[in-house]
C-alpha cells in the first residue's frame, strides 16, 4: 500500500521537506506512522505530536482531512491511498 504524508508550517521549515511517501506491505495505524516518521526525521514527530502516548494538546493529525481524535486517535488505521496532513494549527488572532 502507499500513503502520503504532507508537512505544513513549522514542520516543513524545520525538516526542510514538504512531506514523505511510503510504500508498505501492510496497513498501519497512526502510531506506527509516527514511528516510521521518527526513523526518517530523527525522532522529531513523537516529540511534536505525542504526549504520554496520546496526541498532545495543540496538535492535530488529519487522515484524508478527518481529525483522528474523532476516530481511534493514535490507533486510527491508515489505508492504501490515504493522505495524512500534519501541521500545528495557528491559534492566534
Amino acid at each position: 500500500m502507499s500513503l502520503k504524508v504532507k508537512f505544513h508550517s513549522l514542520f516543513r521549515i524545520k525538516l526542510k521537506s514538504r512531506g514523505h511517501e511510503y510504500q508498505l506491505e501492510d496497513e498501519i495505524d497512526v502510531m506506527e506512522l509516527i514511528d516510521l516518521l521518527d526513523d526518517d526525521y530523527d525522532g522529531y514527530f513523537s516529540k511534536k505530536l505525542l504526549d504520554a502516548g496520546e496526541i498532545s494538546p495543540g496538535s492535530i493529525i488529519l487522515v484524508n482531512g478527518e481529525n483522528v481524535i474523532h476516530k481511534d486517535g493514535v490507533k486510527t488505521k491508515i489505508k492504501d491511498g490515504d493522505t495524512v496532513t500534519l501541521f500545528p494549527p495557528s491559534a492566534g488572532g
Partner: protein
Amino acid sequence: MREYLKRQKKLFKSEEREKMAALNVMVAGTGGLGTNLAIQLQRIGVNKIYLYDYDKVEISNLNRQLCFGRDDIGKAKVEQAAEFLNQFKLDTEIIAKNEKITEEMELADDIHIIFDALDNFETRFVVDKLAQKYGLPFIHAGVEDLFAQIMLILPESKSRLNDVFAGAEKDDTPAVFSPAVTITASFQLLEALKYLLGRDNYLKDTILHIDLFNSEIEKIELR
C-alpha cells in the same frame, strides 16, 4: 452608490454591490484579526458590523490591534474600536457589544455571517456552535508566527470546526506579528465575500493554509 466606493465599483456587478452594501456581519473578537477586519469591512462599505469582545485594551495589544493606541489602555476594546471607526464618518453602522461570547447568547436576527477573530480554539468552538444553532455561515481564521489557516463553514458543510481542529487548544500564548495578522484578515474577508456575493469559487470543505515564511498559499482538501 456611495461616492466613496467609486474606485471599487468596476470589481463588482450591480447586484453584488447591492449585496455588499446590505451585509450585516458579526466579528467575534476585537483584537488583531477583529480590528483589521472591522477596518476593511467599513472601507468596503458593508451595512452593519457587530463587534464583540469583553476585554480592555492592554499594552501587549498595540503591536497589531490597529484601532488602539497608548491612550486607550484600560478602555473597553469594542467601544474604543467603534469610536476609532466612527471618526472616519463613513456609512457603515458599528455596533459595540461588550460581552463574552457564550453558547447561550442571543444574536441579532439580521446577521449574515460570523467572522472568527478570536485568539483561542476554546472560544472558536463555542462560536462554531452558535453559528450552527443560528444556521449562519462562519469563517474561521487563526494566525500564529508567519502561518495562518482559514476555513469557511456553512450550515451544509461536511466538517465543522471541531471536526478538524479538535485538540488544537493549548495553553501557551501564540506569537502574533502585525503583517501576518493583516494579511490573514484580508484573506478571510476576501474568502467570505466570494461566498456572500454568490460567486462559485469559495472554499468548499477546504482549509486555506497561508505560509508567509515560504511565500506559499495552499488548499488542504477535507475530503
